[in-house]
């Protein structure tokens, strides 16, 4: 039981982490809360499902396919909507991204129907770890999260694009004066963040086994709790907060009952913020 709780918790946490880190970098450059973020996770799952069912691609190929599809959608939304949020008051961002969320969700429901669909793909053979049977897919998810977080940390510190992202997050006015094309950086960051959410969706689908148009909302809402707990803009803190939430949810679901799982994030969030208003990892350098 304990091992199951731990394995489920770390897997779920890794899934959340991949979605949340995208949200946190987008928040960094744009200072806007993206209420549509869970929709890109949903679109990633649908992208992979569509590639398998309609185009008959193998699961392995359906993952990059899903990421590319979502990347294209995110690029369009980045140019049409997100760029306009630069320097906009923060309520504007809330309403605009809520609008995007409604559109994406309901277009998917319109095109594919509102019912649940079964996801057929992935590697679900169990592997023995400490006496518990863990599916390969879960191991892949955890490894993917670790690799991507390592890569992101490197990108943000070392590459020109990463440095520019941090610069926009720290002082957008100064960036304009250095001749930085801020809208381009915003769009780039947005597409990157959405692609990570899509990857997370495509990787998780074999574990959850089913998908439907409204599945993004719950993820969006949990992602909020994670990025606030992790200290907004803090990449490393996001991973730790996501794992922590995954473990807590898994423990609550295992010992108290599944119906309480979705409230855990917010009970934890309110508890954490009561004691530490800046989040768990706020002392570390931001972004």
């Amino acid at each position, binding site marked *: 039981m304990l091992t199951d709780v731990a394995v489920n918790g770390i897997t779920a946490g890794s899934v959340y982490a991949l979605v949340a880190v995208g949200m946190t970098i987008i928040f960094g450059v744009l200072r806007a809360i993206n209420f549509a973020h869970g929709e890109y996770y949903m679109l990633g799952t649908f992208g992979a499902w569509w590639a398998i069912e309609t185009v008959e691609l193998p699961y392995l190929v359906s993952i990059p396919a899903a990421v590319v599809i979502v990347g294209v959608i995110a690029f369009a939304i980045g140019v049409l909507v997100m760029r306009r949020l630069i320097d906009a008051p923060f309520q504007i961002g809330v309403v605009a991204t809520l609008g995007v969320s409604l559109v994406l969700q309901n277009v998917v429901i319109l095109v594919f129907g509102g019912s649940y669909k079964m996801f057929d793909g992935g590697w679900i053979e169990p592997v023995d770890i400490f006496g518990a049977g863990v599916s390969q897919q879960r191991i892949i998810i955890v490894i993917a999260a670790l690799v991507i977080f390592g890569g992101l940390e490197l990108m943000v510190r070392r590459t020109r694009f990463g440095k520019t992202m*941090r610069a926009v997050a720290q002082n957008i006015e100064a960036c304009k004066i250095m001749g930085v094309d801020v809208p381009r950086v915003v769009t780039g960051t947005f597409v990157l963040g959405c692609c990570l959410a899509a990857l997370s969706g495509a990787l998780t689908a074999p574990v959850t086994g089913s998908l439907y148009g409204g599945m993004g909302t719950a993820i969006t809402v949990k992602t909020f709790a994670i990025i606030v707990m992790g200290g907004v803009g803090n990449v490393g803190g996001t991973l730790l907060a996501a794992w922590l939430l995954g473990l807590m949810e898994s423990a609550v679901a295992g010992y108290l009952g599944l119906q309480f799982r979705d409230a855990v994030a917010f009970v934890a969030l309110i508890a954490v913020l009561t004691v530490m208003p800046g989040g768990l990892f706020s002392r570390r350098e931001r972004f």
Partner: protein
Amino acid sequence: MPAESGTLDIQALRAGYGPLEIIRSLDLKVEAGEFVALMGPNGAGKSTLLKSIFGMATVTDGRIGWEGQDLRGRKPGHILRAGIAYVPQGRCNFPQMSVDENLDMATYAAPKGVGKAERDYVFDLFPILRERRRMPAGYLSGGEQQMLEMGMAMLLRPRLLLIDEPSVGLSPQTIQKVFAEMIRINQAGCTILLVEQNTRKAMEVASRAAVLRLGQVIWTGPPSAISFAELGEIFMTGRLPGAPDETRGQP
């Protein structure tokens, strides 16, 4: 038209923010190597003028001539590459990035390969930055941050430097140092257009003063040609004491 290196020629400029017009038909010519201090009461349009030149305000009419080309409608990146740099009012660095990373960002708009030699030049201008190169900019003192920002502006070896209120929030000694650096930069051949609230200080260093009021240049000349009291009079009334009154008395 021959490229007049380092000459700025602004004609009939109208500019502001969105529908708000602040610069109202302004003319100003700055020759290469000059050090011009812009003066005038709050709201006269000094900062807006700098922003207009640097492509960060809404320009609705007129011409911003720079070395023979018109900068109107150009973006800051283009203007930087054309040889103009801008140090705005308030903090203009990246507090959680090191001095080195800040200087990296300052060459963002530059062609590839600009860097090493220019960085040494900036470190020679401001040796303190060399000592602090690994430190996050946010940990530097106010004066050091001002120098970092001037260093970032000088990194692309501009021929015209626009500086807005460099003395705000600095101690008198630090102000002294910052002004001394500006004179050195100017003597090295860089034209300077300075906005400074500390009028006395600005009159000491500038080779020419230009007084703005209600979005127009109403007087310009060497600082020695005008007394402090006269300057105050212009700020208040918009004309030089003893000069014929232009607003009234027309037969």
